[in-house]
C-alpha cells in the first residue's frame, strides 16, 4: 500500500525564535519521514514545539536550518497540498455551516464550479453527520458540531496531507471519543496521510500507526514507537487489549522524563 517516496521528509531541522544571544531554540535536530497513507501522531508535553513542527509542515514558518520536503520537492512558501485543523474554532462566524464548508472550494476553484460545488458541499455535510444544519451559523452549534464542520471544510478540497493540531483538545471526554471514532472511520476510507499533534497518550494510542515522542523544549524526537494494534480500531474497544497496556507503559516511560512544569511560551 505504501509507496516508496515519503509524502513529507524532514531532515536535521532546527528552529529558533529570535537571533543571537536572545535566540530561543524551539526545535532541535528533527528528522522524520511521513509515509503516504500513514497516521502519525506527534506526542509531547505542552510547549515542546510539536505544534510548531506542524506550522513548519504547513509552510507557515521557515526553519532556521535543515530541510523540509513535501512529495519530494523542497517546501517553499505555504504548503498547498495540506489541510490544517486546529484546536480552536477557526470557523467564520458570519458564514453558515454550508458557507464554511464551501469556502475551500471557492478559494481553490476561484469560482462556483457550477452545480458541482453545491453537490459536493451537500455530500460532505452528510459525511460528517450535519444534515439538517446547513443554514446554521457556528454560534448556534455545539463544540462537537463545530469540529465536524471544520473537519468537512478540510476534507472537501481533498488535501493529501492532513495536519491536525490537537483538534479535539477542547472537547469533553465523551465527545472526544466520538470524534476520534469519526476521524478513524473517515481516515480509513480516504487513504490520506495524517500528522496529528496531541499531549493525550490514550488518544495517540487509539489513532496512530506510529507515535513520535517529543522531549520538552527545545523539542527533539526521543523515539518513534510503532503502534501495532489491529485496525479498524474503535476508541472504546481498544483499552482491553493486552498490547494496549504494554504500549501505554512504553510511551509513558518515554514521556515521563519530559513532564515538568515549565512556563508555556507561545508556539505560534
Amino acid at each position, binding site marked *: 500500500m505504501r509507496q516508496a517516496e515519503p509524502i513529507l521528509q524532514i531532515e536535521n531541522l532546527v528552529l529558533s525564535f529570535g537571533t543571537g544571544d536572545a535566540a530561543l531554540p524551539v526545535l532541535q535536530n528533527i528528522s522524520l519521514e511521513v509515509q503516504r497513507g500513514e497516521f502519525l501522531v506527534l506526542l509531547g508535553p505542552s510547549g515542546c514545539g510539536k505544534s510548531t513542527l506542524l506550522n513548519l509542515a504547513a509552510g507557515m514558518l521557515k526553519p532556521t536550518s535543515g530541510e523540509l520536503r513535501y512529495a519530494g520537492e523542497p517546501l517553499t512558501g505555504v504548503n498547498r497540498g495540506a489541510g490544517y485543523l486546529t484546536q480552536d474554532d477557526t470557523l467564520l*462566524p*458570519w458564514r453558515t455551516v454550508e458557507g464554511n464548508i464551501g469556502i*475551500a472550494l471557492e*478559494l481553490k476553484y476561484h469560482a462556483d464550479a457550477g452545480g458541482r460545488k453545491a453537490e459536493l458541499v451537500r455530500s460532505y455535510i452528510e459525511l460528517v453527520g450535519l444534515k439538517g444544519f446547513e443554514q*446554521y*451559523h457556528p454560534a448556534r452549534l455545539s463544540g462537537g458540531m463545530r469540529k465536524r464542520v471544520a473537519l468537512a471544510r478540510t476534507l472537501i478540497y481533498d488535501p493529501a496531507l492532513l495536519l491536525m493540531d490537537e483538534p479535539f483538545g477542547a472537547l469533553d471526554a465523551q465527545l472526544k471519543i466520538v470524534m476520534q471514532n469519526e476521524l478513524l472511520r473517515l481516515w480509513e476510507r480516504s487513504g490520506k496521510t495524517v500528522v496529528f499533534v496531541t499531549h493525550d497518550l490514550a488518544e495517540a494510542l487509539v489513532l496512530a500507526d506510529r507515535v513520535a515522542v517529543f522531549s520538552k523544549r527545545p523539542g527533539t524526537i526521543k523515539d518513534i514507537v510503532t503502534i501495532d494494534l489491529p485496525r479498524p480500531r474503535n476508541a472504546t474497544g481498544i483499552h482491553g487489549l493486552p498490547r494496549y497496556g504494554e504500549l501505554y507503559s512504553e510511551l509513558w516511560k518515554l514521556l515521563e522524563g519530559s513532564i515538568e512544569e515549565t512556563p508555556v511560551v507561545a508556539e505560534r
Partner: protein
Amino acid sequence: MTPPDRRSPPILLLQCAAAAALVALWAARAAAAPSMWLPAPLAVGARIVKWSFDGTFARNGAVTVIECVAGLVIGAIFAVLYGLALGYYGWLRRAIYPVALLCYSVPLVALAPPFTAVFGLGIVSKIALTGITAFFLLFFNVLSGAEAIDRRLTAILQVMGASDREILRKLFLPASREWILTGLRVAGPFSLLTAITAEIWGSMAGLGFLVKNAVEVTDMTGMVAVLILLALFGVALNALVGSLGRLSGSGNAPS
C-alpha cells in the same frame, strides 16, 4: 414580562415635564430681565417656524447634510481600504502607523483654516475636513479589527489556496464589519462637529454659516433657533449611524 411599576408615573410624561421645566425657566428669566442676549422662547419658536417655511433651514441644512454624509462616505471607504491593508501586511503597518498616529495627533479642527484657504469657501473644504476626520476615526477602528483577526484563520485559508486579495475580501472585510460600524457610530457626531466648525470659519451656506451670521448681526433669536435645530440634527444623525448595523443585517443572526 415585567409587571408595570405602579408607583412611578409614565416615563414619557416625566421627560416632557423636564423639557417643559427647562423652557419655563428660560421664559421666566427672559421675562424678568429682558435682554438682547437672551431672546424669549416664543420669539425663538416664531423664528424656527419662519425659517422652516421660507427655506432658510432647508437650504442651509441640505448643505450641512451633504458635507457630513459625503465626508463620512469618502473617509470610510479610504479608512477600510487602508485599515485592512495595514492590518494584513505587518511590514506596511510598521512603516506607516507612526506617521498615521502623528497626523492624527493634530487636533483635526485646526485644519479648518488651512483647508478653507486651499479648497475655498464652498463645500469642498468642508467635505475634505469631515472626510479626514471620519478617515482617522474609522481607520484606527478598522486596524484594531484587522489586528484582532486570529492569524491561524489566515494560515488555514492560505493553506486552502487563498490569495492575498481573497483573504482580505473573504476574511478581513467581513471580520471587521462590527469595527467599521463602531467607527461610523463614533465618526457620525464628529462629522457634524467638524462640518459646523469649518462653516463657522468660512463659508457661504450651511447651519454653521447661519450661526456665524446671526452672531455677527447680533440676531440672538436666530442663533438660538439654529442651535436648537443643530441639537435635533445631532440626535437624528446619531440615530441614523446607530441604526446602520441593523440596516445591513447582523451577520450572526440566526436564520
